[in-house]
């Protein structure tokens, strides 16, 4: 439903500022008298803290204060849960252990903060931090997920008596019954490993307590400024209205920045209150590897029951999920895994069960893909295996099991991250599969090109994978729109922005209703003083939920405009049109009034108004969907493997994708490109190497490889449009789409490129080295 502005490929309003260095990031904030914080972090993954001696650091010239957990007083306590455990699933076990501001008696992961130095400069703070003497009694680290649950394992929490953080079992239908009548059961053991978000901008906070106004201003790289403000008020004992959180431009979120009550947020703001001076802490890259949450370590034992003609009868997936040292974000990730495993397929009998394990690693919270990635990997691997065993074409077995366009809304019966039983709202899955096959030239490649390339000695394979992306979940977001007397339009919403193009896409939504050039719409996001209700930017929900709230507010303002203009222009509302910042009588364009003039009249400075009149051309509206909209797509790629180095290069990548109504195709494509980059990292580059003692072995970009521009293939994208019935604009989310289908498509392509070894790859990420090992093992088998 492209309109004059909506759906147009407009260049982003924010880019001139971003590209010329005029945008404000947290580290740009410089305040008079500002102090700098440096944290002393544990080198051990698991140890008792026997004593901390900060006396030398306190004597260090330029040091203003040194704090340990003991100095925090009442502030020191495990932080509130970010997300509650799910309601509506019987028998859920959830052992709550949330992050603490600084470790008190025990450190539970390498990089955990044990002390903070506040000094006149960061240099002084770091030098002094090195002078703090901590006496640790090292303990055996809990790293291996299976051993962690075994008898005799060391425990992270002695009082708990187990490393089990959670247990969740859900079943729709009966897998046992399905397996009993199956012609074929395929099984797989899947391991996925941890990576890091590697945002361009690390975390950072500047907290400034002003004694005279009794208020705290906090610049933060958060994805949830309003929730952070509310949480800080409770923790610090202030009123919410004494705190203003500003999330200015943020250099990438990807999930870890939605985690609230992070130790540094609490310590930095509390220190500013204590000292009455601004305090800044900017995370450095090495800290980021040890103190910012990560994702993607699960071990799955999965099986699929089928008839001999390829019809799925049931799926069983039992897995272990690594939550790290804390579970502040509860079960969002493994719930996403449960709802996304069956993806686009009809699975009448589905058993899904998991255990969540505490380990001596930094806590796990959603990272772009957030649980969906593993579920998709497991299911697509099972599909590939079943196709091979049955001698079927891998796309045919997928197609015959897909939910059909006339079967929506489709209920899977499994409770998801929004605690609602998962419903897939709309789509045309076979169309996306066909489109991706057409774009990659599926038949021609397999029948002609691949044999020809193989004859030339090249190892080239095709991978194709389908995925769904549950997105746009509630609870709600809001927006306020004001037409000013200047003729400009002000738009505020509570979500923060980390590069998604909100300043443009939200402006396009409002522009469509108000007939104003999007360039004249001034968008404010992530400032609690501009808008103070909302949840945050996560789960691919900005465009869908906040975008829908913007649309609702714009509609209300439009109604106010029409009502007023109708009186002034003496024409019925339905004969009026809004365009070019004017209201006109459609047939007589000379009878018109500008929005600026209307705004002046709507806010008279003298005289009387009719009782009940609201001033200004302004409206606030909220939007919350009953449940999340599910986007989907199909990704296909051609991969060439070098048989000597086992480097694998993606030569082509196509994505047929449907996220309903498109607000701005260029921004949408940017989202997919970025997601593909992360997906490729999760497939072949990015793995955090951890030794048995919980020591990270590759905490720098020298050793932890992220895909570079030269590693990314050309990406061809096709948009399909099935509007979601869950919001008036028909939008679905897209933020995580690019990342989800890449690992299964990639490993399938690698297998296809090396047919002589009959590989069965059941892990991600690979690396050239790991691929070499897998091939060597296959040669010996």
């Amino acid at each position: 439903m492209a309109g004059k502005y909506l759906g147009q490929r407009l260049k982003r309003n924010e880019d001139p500022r971003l590209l010329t260095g005029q945008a404000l990031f947290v580290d740009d904030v410089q305040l008079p008298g500002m102090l700098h914080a440096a944290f002393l972090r544990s080198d051990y993954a698991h140890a008792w803290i026997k004593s901390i001696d900060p006396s030398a650091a306190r004597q260090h010239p330029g040091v203003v204060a040194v704090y340990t957990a003991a100095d925090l007083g009442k502030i020191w306590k495990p932080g509130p849960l970010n997300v509650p455990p799910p309601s509506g699933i019987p028998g859920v076990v959830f052992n709550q252990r949330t992050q603490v501001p600084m470790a008190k008696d025990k450190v539970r992961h390498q990089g955990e903060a044990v002390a903070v130095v506040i000094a006149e400069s960061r240099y002084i703070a770091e030098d002094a931090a090195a002078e703090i003497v901590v006496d640790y009694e090292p303990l055996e680290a809990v790293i291996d997920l299976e051993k962690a649950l075994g008898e005799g394992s060391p425990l992270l929490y002695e009082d708990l008596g187990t490393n089990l953080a959670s247990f969740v079992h859900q079943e729709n239908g009966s897998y046992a019954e399905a397996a009993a009548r199956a012609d074929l059961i395929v099984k797989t053991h899947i391991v996925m490993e941890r990576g890091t978000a590697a945002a361009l901008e690390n975390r950072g906070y500047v907290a400034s307590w002003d004694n005279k106004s009794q208020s705290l201003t906090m610049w933060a790289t958060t994805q949830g400024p309003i929730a952070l403000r509310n949480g800080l008020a409770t923790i610090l004992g202030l009123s919410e209205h004494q705190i203003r959180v500003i999330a200015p431009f943020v250099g990438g979120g990807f999930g870890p920045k939605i985690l609230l009550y992070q130790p540094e947020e609490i310590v930095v703001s509390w220190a500013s209150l204590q000292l009455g001076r601004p305090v800044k802490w900017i995370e450095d890259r090495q800290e980021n590897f040890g103190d910012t949450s990560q994702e993607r370590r699960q071990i799955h034992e999965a099986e699929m029951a089928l008839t001999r003609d390829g019809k799925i009868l049931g799926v069983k997936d039992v897995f272990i999920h690594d939550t790290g040292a804390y579970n502040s974000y509860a079960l969002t990730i493994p719930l996403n895994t449960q709802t996304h495993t069956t993806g686009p397929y009809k699975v009448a009998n589905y058993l899904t069960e998991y255990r969540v394990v505490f380990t001596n690693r930094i806590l796990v919270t959603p990272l772009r893909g957030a649980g969906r990635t593993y579920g998709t990997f497991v299911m697509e691997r099972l599909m590939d295996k079943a196709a091979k065993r049955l001698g079927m074409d891998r796309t045919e077995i997928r197609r015959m099991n897909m939910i059909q366009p006339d079967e929506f809304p489709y209920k899977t019966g499994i409770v998801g991250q929004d605690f609602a039983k998962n419903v897939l709202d709309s789509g045309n899955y076979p169309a996306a599969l066909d489109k991706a096959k057409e774009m990659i030239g599926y038949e021609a490649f397999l029948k002609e090109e691949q044999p020809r390339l193989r004859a030339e000695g090249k190892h080239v394979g095709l991978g194709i994978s389908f995925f769904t992306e549950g997105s746009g979940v509630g609870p709600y977001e809001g927006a306020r729109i004001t037409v000013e007397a200047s003729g400009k339009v002000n738009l505020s919403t509570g979500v923060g922005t980390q590069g998604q193009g909100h300043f443009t896409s939200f402006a396009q939504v409002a522009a469509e209703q108000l007939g104003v050039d999007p360039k004249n719409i001034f968008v404010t996001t992530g400032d609690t003083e501009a808008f103070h209700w909302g949840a945050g930017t996560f789960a691919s929900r900005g465009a869908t939920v906040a975008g829908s709230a913007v649309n609702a507010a714009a509609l209300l303002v439009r109604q106010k405009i029409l009502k007023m203009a109708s009186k002034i222009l003496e024409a019925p509302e339905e004969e009026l049109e809004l365009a070019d910042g004017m209201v006109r009588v459609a047939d007589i364009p000379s009878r018109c009034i500008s929005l600026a003039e209307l705004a002046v009249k709507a806010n008279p400075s003298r005289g009387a108004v009719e009782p009940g009149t609201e001033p200004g051309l302004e409206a606030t509206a909220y939007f919350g969907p009953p449940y999340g909209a599910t986007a989907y797509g199909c990704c296909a790629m051609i991969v060439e493997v070098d048989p000597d180095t086992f480097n694998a290069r993606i030569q082509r990548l196509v994505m047929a994708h449907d996220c309903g109504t498109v607000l701005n195709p260029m921004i949408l494509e940017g989202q997919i490109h970025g997601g593909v980059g992360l997906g490729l990292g999760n497939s072949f580059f990015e793995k955090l190497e951890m030794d048995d003692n919980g020591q990270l072995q590759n905490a720098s970009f020298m050793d932890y490889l992220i895909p570079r521009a030269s590693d990314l293939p050309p990406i061809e994208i096709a948009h399909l449009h099935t509007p979601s019935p869950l919001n008036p604009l028909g939008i679905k989310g897209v933020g995580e789409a690019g990342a989800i289908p890449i690992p299964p498509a990639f490993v399938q392509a690698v297998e296809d490129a090396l047919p002589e070894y009959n590989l069965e790859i059941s892990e991600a990420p690979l690396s050239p080295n790991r691929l070499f090992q897998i091939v060597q093992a296959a040669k010996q088998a």
Partner: protein
Amino acid sequence: MKLEGDYLFNGPREEVWAMVRDPEVLASCLPGTQSLKQISPNEYEGGIYVRIGPVSGSFAGRLTVSNEVPPESCTLTVEGKGAAGFAKGVGNVFLEAQAPDKTLLKYTGEFNIGGKLAAIGQRLIESVGKSMINKGFETLDKTLQARMAGKTPN
């Protein structure tokens, strides 16, 4: 992490043994050693400055000698920590007389590192460690030659 190697000294086994057990000699031979103090017959405390790629800093540590069989073998336990992390290692040293003036020192050991050392220095630590040990042995051999040259006239 495992560490093993050997070094051929140009001197008799007893002389090599005496040097290995002399803290002042050890301190002068290990590159970066800032201090080494004997605190009991088998225990030493000291400081060492280490640079491994982008990671550098001073480490305070303790060296313990055990299972001593003079002049054949002993076990060395090293524990050190500093701002750049920590290291803990256990090594066995064997001295083998190959000729009246040739002694082969063999060592095998295992050590764990943590903190920045592991996180950033990981891929360099084995080669840096080996090179430090070899440099130490070279200096030790030179000292040995000097000692023996001094002794011969007597």
